[in-house]
């Protein structure tokens, strides 16, 4: 590859014989970048753009499972617009995402700050924090399902033994109980990602900055507010974008724990789409529900894109 690069300038500058267009493309520096990008590009198109495009196309057809559909325009969307269950899932998804993300951020940041201090058994605590992240989602969902079981729930049992309640709590049977329960499970599962990533970010902050701030007379809170937090914002933006995206598109936890019940109280857009498309066979409608998630996700990405823009202090070159 090195010789391609080395040859490139002389080929274009002083070629005595006529080079074919193909030879020139092969050696031209600007095209070289293109050749290097090609494998990645093919991969992205094949596995990302194609399914996405297909999904959007399906949402404009009346395809059923096992039967290719015809183009029906925005009929699927019109149908969803008048479907109260769809709007319920939108509400559920927004509630699930916002509550879980905020709490995951708060707990994750707290844990990261804690783990960044000198603690006894730090390595062990760090490993323990990672456990929820390592356990396969389905397994942890099943575990939560047992924890929240109407009859055998250990939570209800403990509270009963402590005489705090008289009857078992119906965790997954009551709509609001079910919502909080799945949110709780999602938080439990999502905190390690936030905590460990923020911890990595915290460790990039030079300790001498804190020492300088200590000598400058800062309190611990001021050090967090004026040193840690501003230096951490780029990483917070990345972590929280991913966290929001993962939460918004969550499927496994809900599907294993409640299948969207009771009475659709915990149906998220992803589970609802799956139910319509695969369980009921209305591929076009399911695809439309999935496609309806795109604007929300784009919003989340845009917010983080603005948050992520390199701040002035991060770039060295320009004067203004």
């Amino acid at each position: 590859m090195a010789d391609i690069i080395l040859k490139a300038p002389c080929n274009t500058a002083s070629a005595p014989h006529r080079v074919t267009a193909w030879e020139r493309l092969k050696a031209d520096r600007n095209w070289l970048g293109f050749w290097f990008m090609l494998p990645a590009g093919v991969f992205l198109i094949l596995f990302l753009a194609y399914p996405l495009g297909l999904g959007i196309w399906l949402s404009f057809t009346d395809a059923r499972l096992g039967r290719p559909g015809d183009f029906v325009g925005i009929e699927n969307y019109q149908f969803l617009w008048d479907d109260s269950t769809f709007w319920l899932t939108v509400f559920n998804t927004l509630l699930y995402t916002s509550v879980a993300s905020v709490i995951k951020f708060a707990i994750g940041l707290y844990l990261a700050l804690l783990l960044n201090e000198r603690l006894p058994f730090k390595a062990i605590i760090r490993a323990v924090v990672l456990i929820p992240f390592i356990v396969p989602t389905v397994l942890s969902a099943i575990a939560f399902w047992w924890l929240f079981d109407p009859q055998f729930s250990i939570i209800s049992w403990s509270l009963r033994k402590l005489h705090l309640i008289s009857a078992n709590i119906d965790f997954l049977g009551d709509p609001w109980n079910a919502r909080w329960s799945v949110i709780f499970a999602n938080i439990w599962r999502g905190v390690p990602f936030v905590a460990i990533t923020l911890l990595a970010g915290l460790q990039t902050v030079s300790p001498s900055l804190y020492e300088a701030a200590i000598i400058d007379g800062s309190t611990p809170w001021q050090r967090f507010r004026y040193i840690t937090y501003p230096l951490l914002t780029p990483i917070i933006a990345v972590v929280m974008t991913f966290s929001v995206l993962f939460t918004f598109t969550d499927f496994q936890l809900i599907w294993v724990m409640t299948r969207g019940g009771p009475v659709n109280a915990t149906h998220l857009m992803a589970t609802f789409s799956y139910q319509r498309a695969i369980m009921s066979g209305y591929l076009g409608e399911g695809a439309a529900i999935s496609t309806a998630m795109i604007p929300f996700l784009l919003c989340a990405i845009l917010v983080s894109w603005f948050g992520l823009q390199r701040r002035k202090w991060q770039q060295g070159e320009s004067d203004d």
Partner: protein
Amino acid sequence: MASVAIRDVRKAFGTSVVIHGVSIDIGDGEFVVLVGPSGCGKTTLLRMIAGLENITAGEIRIGERVVNQVPPKERDVAMVFQNYALYPHMTVAQNMAFSLKLRGASQAEIDERVKQAAEILGLGPYLARYPRQLSGGQRQRVAMGRAIVRNPQVFLFDEPLSNLDAKLRVQMRTEIKELHQRLKTTTIYVTHDQIEAMTMADRIVVMHDGIVEQIGAPLELYDHPANLFVAGFIGSPAMNILKGRLLGGERAVFDGGDGIRFPLHHMPAGGDGRPVICGVRPEHFALSSDGTEAEVQVVEPTGSEIHVVAKMGSEDVIAVFRERHQFRPGDKIRLRPDPRLVHLFDEATGRRLGS
């Protein structure tokens, strides 16, 4: 401003003891340089004064107050770190204003003080820049600015010039010294560069392996090193060190074997036959027909002087001449030290003999 008293201070990290009882008295307004080889505990001592490290034993006073248990923010000291530790997300002005802001000073006072410091340090044009947009020397000045806006009792500097190139280092050396003459704030300055120590200090503290080897004015250390370590550490090129013994007789002589004989000004106590170590500064050698013969190995002209490395007996010695002698490798020369300027040290303890 305040004096600083360090009394028998010790420091251990776990079981490894790094500072073994150090006592230094620093007067109000004095510029004291801590110097010593890498790992001798200079930074550790400075951090104990700042309050960033606990004091294992002993006592540190700033002014009249024992500060062992006083948190850093109440010690009223300012520190310039080796890597400057500028806050990357704050402009030069914000960096300098930070401590005042934390203290709750009024905006008018902050502006006034920052402006004043910027003027002293020539940072006026850069106030709105971020640290990344500054050169090494400018960053160094911001770090000093951050210290001087606070008008603290004591300045602590930890090798503030070690990241700069040689020319800038010389320039900043002068600037720091001028700044001290202007502000007269008590200053403790750490370096491992003995030239920096010699040029800047009112008094130098030479440290080695967690103890103080000698405290004194720069020329005092140069002229009367208390022991072999200080003799070898202070001065560049380093002092020539030769092993041998004293010979009495009509005139006292140092006999280094292999025909090395240096006449002495007087015979120290313990006299004839005593094994000693003799130290001669390179510039105290002179060419003399009754000197010891040596063979020139290397000639290094620096412009203002020439350094000559010569083999004397089995030892390499270095001599510095202001005259432009035209020596060539292989030439035989005769070197004789000025008898009044020869240093003698006890062979066993390394302590200076005589005055």
